[in-house]
């Protein structure tokens, strides 16, 4: 959360946040030399993705038994190994798997999983298991980096609202709906392209009394916008995607992120959301469309980066606030569930299935899966092994790691 100004009463967690952000800032510069060209793209699948129909335990008879209408027939499953296969609409991801650029972490969750979208999203993004956290784990990470050396785009969120994962107490993250909208249009009656007007406006912001409501937020937001808009506009003028992206807003978002990477804007953390996964009813078509959108857009993104020689420096990680109930409901859909798989994509990845698919015969009292991998160990892996950050500092504790990325 961002609203900070001098003298603000700040809960202890945020003072710690500041301290660790400062520590990380130092650490970040040390580390920056080794890994400054590395980028993490986080893809949020909002609404609770049906993990069982994404990475399918197709050989388990219980899967077919508990999902008489929604189970994907064996013949359509894209086989990964003798136990698991992909939803047929994820076909565009198959080449990535075959080339060794895709990992799946199975059974990801946390203790006492919440069936509330909002508490679960809070937990995944702030790591506060009470669901009352505010500062995002990525916000904490990037607050020491953003603007450190004149790069406003160390982090970039696509959309009209900054994701909670990227909320930080000290640094607003640029939030871009589209490249065209990310600029200030001048009054044509101004013959200086609006420069004098913008200068006067920035003066109104910098001189806004620091004790006034939202002073820091307003000032940093204005600065952030001013710095970023010209850089993005320049980058955009010379960027040519190497592939044709699918025509949906999720793909358009990935294209903005690719542009920031290819054009060397210094992007370390990118964030984009695909929504619509809350499939309580008539799930089949909806979910298939979402799977296709996800796979084709990510595939285009990868191919674009690859063609620009950037595929070695980008890792993509997906998450969703929960999986869905094992047994289908009476509305051809599934209700809120718990553990689910995460995808990790990119050239630097060790291909494979990590973690353990949860058992379908040993469910919790609500008929939901028992998690086998703590989501924080996945975060720790990308922090320690990819971004070279200290996961202990960012996450507040050590949660082990997964082997989908090599030891640095």
């Amino acid at each position, binding site marked *: 959360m961002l609203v900070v100004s001098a003298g603000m009463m700040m809960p202890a967690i945020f003072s710690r946040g500041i301290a660790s952000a400062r520590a990380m800032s130092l650490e970040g510069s040390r580390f920056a030399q080794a890994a400054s060209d590395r980028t993490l793209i986080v893809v949020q699948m909002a609404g609770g993705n049906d993990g069982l129909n994404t990475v399918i335990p197709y050989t388990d008879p219980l899967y077919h038994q508990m999902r008489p209408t929604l189970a994907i027939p064996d013949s359509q499953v894209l086989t990964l190994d003798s136990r698991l296969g992909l939803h047929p609409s994820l076909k565009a991801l198959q080449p990535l798997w075959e080339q060794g650029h895709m990992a799946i972490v199975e059974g990801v969750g946390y203790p006492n999983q919440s069936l509330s979208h909002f508490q679960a999203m809070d937990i995944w*993004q702030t790591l506060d298991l009470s669901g009352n956290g505010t500062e995002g784990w990525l916000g904490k990470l990037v607050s020491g980096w953003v603007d450190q050396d004149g790069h406003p785009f160390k982090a970039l969120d696509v959309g009209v609202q900054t*994701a909670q994962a990227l909320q930080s107490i000290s640094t607003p993250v640029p939030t871009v709906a589209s490249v065209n909208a990310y600029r200030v249009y001048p009054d044509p009656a*101004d013959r200086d392209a609006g420069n004098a007007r913008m200068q006067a*406006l920035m003066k109104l912001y910098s001189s806004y009394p620091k004790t006034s409501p*939202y002073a820091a937020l307003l000032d940093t937001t204005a600065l952030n916008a001013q710095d970023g808009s010209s850089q993005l506009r320049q980058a955009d003028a010379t960027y040519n995607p190497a592939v044709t992206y699918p025509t949906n807003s999720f793909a358009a978002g990935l294209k903005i992120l690719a542009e920031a990477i290819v054009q060397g804007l210094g992007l370390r953390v990118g964030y984009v959301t695909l929504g619509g996964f809350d499939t309580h009813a008539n799930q089949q078509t909806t979910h298939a469309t979402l799977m296709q959108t996800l796979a084709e857009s990510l595939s285009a993104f990868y191919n674009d980066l690859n063609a620009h020689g950037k595929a070695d420096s980008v890792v993509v990680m997906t998450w969703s606030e929960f999986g869905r109930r094992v047994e289908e409901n009476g509305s051809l859909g599934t209700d809120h569930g718990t553990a689910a798989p995460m995808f990790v994509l990119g050239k630097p990845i060790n291909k494979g299935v990590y973690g353990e698919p949860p058992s379908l015969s040993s469910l919790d009292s609500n008929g939901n899966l028992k998690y086998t991998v703590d989501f924080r160990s996945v975060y720790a892996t990308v922090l320690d092994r990819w971004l070279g950050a200290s996961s202990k500092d960012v996450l507040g504790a050590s949660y082990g790691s997964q082997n989908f990325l090599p030891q640095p």
Partner: protein
Amino acid sequence: MSMNDDDLNNQPTEPRRKLGASAGRPSMAGGISPGQMGAVPPTPIAPVSGQTIPPTPTYRFARGTQGTQRGPVTSSRQGVSRRKVLGASLLGMAGLGVAGVAGGLALNWAEHGNSSNLFHSSAGSAQIGHLLRRAGFGASPTDLATYQSLGFQGAVERLLNYQQVSDDELENRLKTLNLDLNKPADQQRWWLLRMAWTQRPLLEKMTLFWHGVLTSSYQKVGGKNFFMRMIIQNQFLREHAFDTFDNILLGITADPAMLFYLDLTRSRKNSPNENYARELMELFTIGLGHYTQQDVSEGAAALTGWHVEGLTSRYIPADHNNLVKHYLGQTGNFDYKDVVRILANHPAAPWFLSRKLFTFFVYENPSTDDLKPLVDSYVESGHNIGAVMRTLLLSPQFSSAQAYRARIKSPTEFVVGAYRALGLQGSGMALPSFTTLTGQTLFNPPNVGGWPGDKVSALWLNSGTWMSRLNYIDLLLVRGGAIGKEQPQPLDLQAVVNANHIDSPEHFVDYYASFLLDGTLDSDRRSMLIDYFTTPDVSRGGAQVTLTDGKSYPLNRVRGTLYLMMSSPEYQLN
């Protein structure tokens, strides 16, 4: 009680928010919006014997006459309207008059509402300005004069007793626009222009509040043939905005858009769908921590029996699960009416609702003491929302320094507010795209939790939405809001100058500050604006504005000064 300027200048040094408090639940872009949902046709309902209830007051909006020619559509089916389902006690504001708390006013700004010095005062206009921003969408000079003449309490009465104020002019103007209310962009224009032109601002603001709480999205109401369900829901929320919470919950449970949005229409008595049952408790009435997963599944069973049929809905007793349910500590063969009764009477409900209202209308992270009077009003008035709102608006907290500019304007407040303040009469074509670019698409919330910015207003602001706010102001001033092929109509500043006898740059700044910024601009900032106005320059094409003292200034500087005021930090705050 007297008032000096210090009271106003002594504004809260911080937005009063405890960052860790549970009230604010920031969420993320994209949310759970079912953006990819395809059109799903409504389930055909097999004719059943017994009582047939099409409970929706089916307003039909004929093309070109939207917003005025509405009335119950004659149904061939014998049935009971949603209005009937709500019970005979549907008297709207009936409870309002009795439940007022006229005493106990400790307004910082009270007794200053009658200042006649409209354009150069701060005290009275600031308090009325604050009231109209919170309980409406800001003020034009006319609004300010109208409400200021009533005094603060009189202004509150006028806002609450909206039926006594005619909105015919609005309805007539909307009629001329030939909006097609089957289309989301026209739906948004229809509502945004209502907000901009209404003489009943609190009614529209309250409708907006409910839309953010009891929310649905056109992305999942049954496909494009049924987008009209969103307007039906909107009209329901407007007509019952100040009704009892019980009636509002009964109506929203039977609402066609909601039935589809949260899948109650697909719930089956032998296999209940949990979606509505869960969100009804978590997001609409009592909140997390007051129910268990068992309450979700038992509640879902109790809520079965509803179906959407076209633009109406029906309750079919034969489709209702008749088993005994254990729900929130009570046991019985409950149906939807019992669920609503239990929830509206649940001890957590008034606190939950009061927190939402207080956060939306006053400031974030209210204390128990802040909420207690609202909770008491809820209980004493028989759950009447009008009574609760009266208590809220007349509370010392509402008029406190802590509340002043304590929230970032929402996209709707910003976009509508600027349109209203400048008195624009155009097509409103730009309003939907600019509310979207600034972070809020009406009838399409990010997810069932509504807009996170309604809870934590800081979430409305980021680099992208900030630039879109600036661009919107530019569009209003340079083109009068015209987009695409529309003929640009630049704001006629010469006419404003002439009509208001503006005879100096100072007067220009003070005139606009009086209703845009409560007249509270401090001298440093006022000087910056005047400097900008008077800096020698030549507007492209040489256009000028001549003040009534005969001196001319380049158009770009005059217009730029107003742009700076509406792009300033102060103007982003509500």
